[in-house]
């Protein structure tokens, strides 16, 4: 990666901070039932500038860009493009204003060709209003050429492309409607190393053409490599704006993490028992590459890593959603083969998934039925559900996790994120598991609920439960874990004892930047 001096030299000229900003948002507020997503965010992007948005999950980055790209409407605040005050009713408005967004989950038509995907919705026409395929193909080739992309052809079917190439198609689509502001949401999260390099080249080209870019990433090294300025969000609020040339990763991490480590509920030291979960050289292509770990009774092992580093995939392999290709899983020393979540549950493995609404809960169903979901087998005799027992279970759950709900009949879809998460947790604990895997246990929930869940976790550990916690929030990892494992590209790259797990060291290891060798590589 180029050195800072070189970077500033290159980006100094087009850095039109003084020039009229391309985009200027001010005092953006947005809240959802149960959560305050954004409180008064303001920032601007100049032509030819790469403006990075930094922040942990749930900090409000995604909400912000969804507002800028017209998916959400802000509760208050203004959006100016070229000084014109605009109200975006629908994504199309933003598009017309020259704003294009490349989401993490690429929005493409897998059955259609590259050219069609690029020009869908604004294709060139012949005099007779027919699609002009020749023209379309020509312009596609031109676009490809302009970005030196040679392994893509206009006629290819998008469904068959690599993730990197599909992303390029999205970028081309944005350019084809000559977007002047490009929003990239974690563009590298899913990319292989060489794809990342090519993405950088493309971003630099766009820069030099005066395209403004909002670049969202967790990876500090990328921000230093690409961005001119960086705005840091925390809990929906703007905590600082820095010019990249004048800041350091330490400062940024500090901004992101803030001083919250102290006011987190710390894990109470509990006596560690015998190993409960042991994983040996577990392989599940493509995301999990020979992983080994051990979790002991009463221990909380934190699994740090960036989105796309393979943490959730590992968890789901242990849980049997995507059974392992090879490797061993031992439960309390006994080797087991987990081929489905059903078997996993039977073995006493519990998994609180990262995506609450699609994987964790049945939103249209009641609190009662969600609580008992994982326990039906023991709640029923001869297939018949013991309603009394089921209701007691749910009541206890509501009481124990202080779930705020009007009744057991309440539809969970209507509850706040925090209460929903408590129910998912309760659903699994009701099945009293031996090993609990938590995937982003406090994502997108308010601080109060967060604290409660953390207290609960250490309480459970105290009772001898083995917990494997995946989290993208450093303070959470650091605050809660007895041990921190850092995962990158499907492998463990570092392990820290609680004592020497500092934000800087762990953060660095996660991002693979300088200092990755801190901590004993495993």
């Amino acid at each position, binding site marked *: 990666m180029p050195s800072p001096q070189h970077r500033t030299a290159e980006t100094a000229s087009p850095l039109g901070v003084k020039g009229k900003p391309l985009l200027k948002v001010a005092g953006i507020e947005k809240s959802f039932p149960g959560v305050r997503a954004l409180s008064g965010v303001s920032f601007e992007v100049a032509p030819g500038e790469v403006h990075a948005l930094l922040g942990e999950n749930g900090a409000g980055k995604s909400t912000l860009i969804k507002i800028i790209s017209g998916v959400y409407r802000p509760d208050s605040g203004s959006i100016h493009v070229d000084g014109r005050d605009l109200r975006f009713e629908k*994504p*199309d408005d933003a*598009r017309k204003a020259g704003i294009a967004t490349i989401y993490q989950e690429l*929005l*493409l*038509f*897998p*059955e*259609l*060709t590259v050219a*069609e995907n690029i020009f*869908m*919705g*604004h*294709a060139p*026409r012949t005099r007779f*209003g*027919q*699609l002009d*395929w020749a023209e379309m193909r020509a312009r596609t080739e031109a676009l490809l050429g302009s970005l030196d992309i040679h*392994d*893509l*052809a206009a*006629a*290819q*079917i998008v*469904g*068959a*492309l*690599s*993730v990197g*190439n599909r992303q390029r198609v999205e970028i081309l689509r944005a350019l084809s409607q000559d977007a002047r502001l490009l929003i990239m949401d974690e563009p590298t999260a*899913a990319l*292989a190393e060489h794809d990342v390099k090519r993405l950088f080249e493309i971003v630099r080209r766009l820069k030099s053409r005066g395209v403004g870019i909002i670049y969202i990433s967790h990876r500090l090294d990328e921000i230093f490599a690409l961005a001119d300025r960086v705005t840091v969000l925390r809990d929906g609020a703007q905590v600082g704006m820095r010019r990249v040339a004048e800041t350091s990763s330490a400062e940024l991490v500090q901004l992101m993490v803030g001083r919250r480590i102290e006011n987190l509920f710390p894990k109470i030291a509990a006596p560690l028992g015998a190993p409960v979960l042991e994983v040996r050289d577990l392989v599940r292509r*493509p*995301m999990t590459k020979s992983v080994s770990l051990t979790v002991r009774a009463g221990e909380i092992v934190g699994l740090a890593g960036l989105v796309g580093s393979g943490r959730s995939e590992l968890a789901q392999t242990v849980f049997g959603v995507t059974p392992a290709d090879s490797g061993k899983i031992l439960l309390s020393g006994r080797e087991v083969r987990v081929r489905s979540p059903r078997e996993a549950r039977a073995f006493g493995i519990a998994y609180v998934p990262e995506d609450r609404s699609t994987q964790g809960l049945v939103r249209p169903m009641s609190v009662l039925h969600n609580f008992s979901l994982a326990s039906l087998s023991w709640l029923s005799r001869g297939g018949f559900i013991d309603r009394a027992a089921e209701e007691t279970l749910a009541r206890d759950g509501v009481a124990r996790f202080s779930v705020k709900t009007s009744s057991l009949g309440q539809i969970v879809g209507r509850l706040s994120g925090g209460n929903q998460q408590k129910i998912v947790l309760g659903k699994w604990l009701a099945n009293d598991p031996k090993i609990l895997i938590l995937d982003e246990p406090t994502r997108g929930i308010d601080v109060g609920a967060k604290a409660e869940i953390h207290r609960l976790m250490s309480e459970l550990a105290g009772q001898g439960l083995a917990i494997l916690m995946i989290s993208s929030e450093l303070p959470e990892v650091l605050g809660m874990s007895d041990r921190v494992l850092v995962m990158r*590209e*499907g492998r463990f790259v570092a392990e820290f004892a609680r004592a020497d797990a500092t934000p800087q060291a762990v953060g660095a290891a996660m991002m693979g930047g300088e200092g990755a060798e801190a901590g004993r590589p495993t």
Partner: protein
Amino acid sequence: MSAIPFPGVRASEHSVIRMLGSQEALLALAIIGVAILVGLDNARFLATRNLSDILLGNAYVAVAAIGMSMIIISGNIDISVGSLIGVMATISGSLAVAGAPIVVAWGLPLIVGVLVMALQGAIVAYLRIPSIVVTLGMLSILKGGLISVTGGKWITDLPESFHLADIELFGILPMPVLLMTVATALAAIWMRYSARGRSIYATGGNPEAARLCGISPQRTVVMVFAIHGFFAGVAALLFATQLKVIQSTVPPNLELTVITAAVVGGVSILGGVGTVVGSTLAAVLIAEIASALVFINVSPYWIHAVQGAMILATVVADILRRRRRLAGALTR
């Protein structure tokens, strides 16, 4: 991490050929294959007369299948098409007998078709009721309505000029075949070269993305149903003008035959792919097989079994094929 089990470019070029070629080529092969097989058994089968009769007698299915393909591509289904054709045939015939100008007798059914289908499309798109329910309901409404209005009285003494299907352009080119080919060609071109045509694929393939591209899935669905209604109208004309009598009842199992043609034609049920050329070829194939079964002395009662097996085979093959081709997409 490269999520792709096979190198992106080569595999995809491979699949381009597959996409454009496979279904149509396969069907063309099947058509020829059956012809030869049966021809060996009884050479008369290959007589131009017989082949053209097969086309003449079934062109209306092919025409109806064009619209059905669009419906399925857009991610919907229509069970009411058979009844609608019955209704429109009756309207057209009654008008002709009542002495309305032929143009009216031919034109009105088309309009009725468009309106009825557009209505259904609107219910599906805006009231968000699955097309299966809407069209099942419409099926019985039309069926019952037709009989209670006409009392099933046959329509006879149709004016000579009414018989569209009997017209032979330049004395050689029979109208049904002409309409079938022209309709197919136009539809195919429209779906390939017009933005609206492509938007059908987009809506069927990925509604969310379509929306973000400024395409309104709702409007697209209504449009598709309306177009389907138009083709159903044309089909009804061919159906009505073929014989000197119009039964003014609903042709049994017609919807099933039409859906079969569309599906066997390579229209993917998962929405988003397929061509009307395929559906037309499939319609021809089905008709050919029906005739072949007689030629090789098989009870036509097996025709449904064959149809069912064909849909099944095609759908399964299609799904497996897509699963393989989209493996890359699925792993992420």
